[in-house]
């Protein structure tokens, strides 16, 4: 059902062996997962900030980016492939 409401290209998904290795704690695989979601995390942590003149600037909130990375790692390690 989810596939229907949100069509997902198979190529956009991580390969199964990486998911499996990452969930078992493989460092290289976890880094690959982080790399895969890097763009998504960056876009989520982008915040609109205003300078003294009231001009909007878009900045990546580093604190939030780190928090998201940490969250992602905990979720990867919780994930059960079986």
């Amino acid at each position: 059902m989810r596939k229907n409401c949100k069509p997902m290209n198979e190529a956009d998904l991580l390969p199964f062996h990486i998911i499996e290795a990452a969930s078992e704690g493989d460092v290289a695989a976890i880094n690959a997962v982080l790399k895969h979601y890097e763009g998504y995390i960056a876009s989520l942590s982008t915040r609109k900030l205003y300078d003294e003149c009231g001009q909007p600037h878009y900045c990546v909130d580093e604190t939030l980016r780190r928090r998201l990375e940490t969250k992602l790692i905990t979720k990867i390690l919780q994930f059960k492939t079986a």
Partner: protein
Amino acid sequence: MEQSSSSKESTIRHQFDWICKLALKGEVADYHKHLAYRQKHEVTLSELSKKELSKLFTMDEYSVENHCFQVLGYDVEVKDALIAEALQTLSEKKRNVILLSYFMEMSDAEIAREMNLVRSTIHEHRKRSLELLKNIMEGSTDEKEL
């Protein structure tokens, strides 16, 4: 219902992607809630009122630093060194009247009873003593300024 291995893997890949994205979105919401909470409750030190600021620290008080006078069995502590010095120069009777009326907050009548004197005498003592104190303290501050 037996699933083929490739479709099972595909399901897991989708599940994994879904779980990751959901967790990240949840974390972003948490972070914004946290920011809103801080914005509501945090104040810079410079914006604190004097009263609020004074709650942030305490000053130790040591009785040895205060001058102690004994009046009719009461111990009266005087914190201000200048006042204590001025009081020291007064005669004992005058000092007692001042201490009892201003530090022990007794009325003239009460002091009169305690000291076996007439009320008007106490009143007179008090008036004279205050004038003396005024002269002494003004004199000593003038000296300091010079």
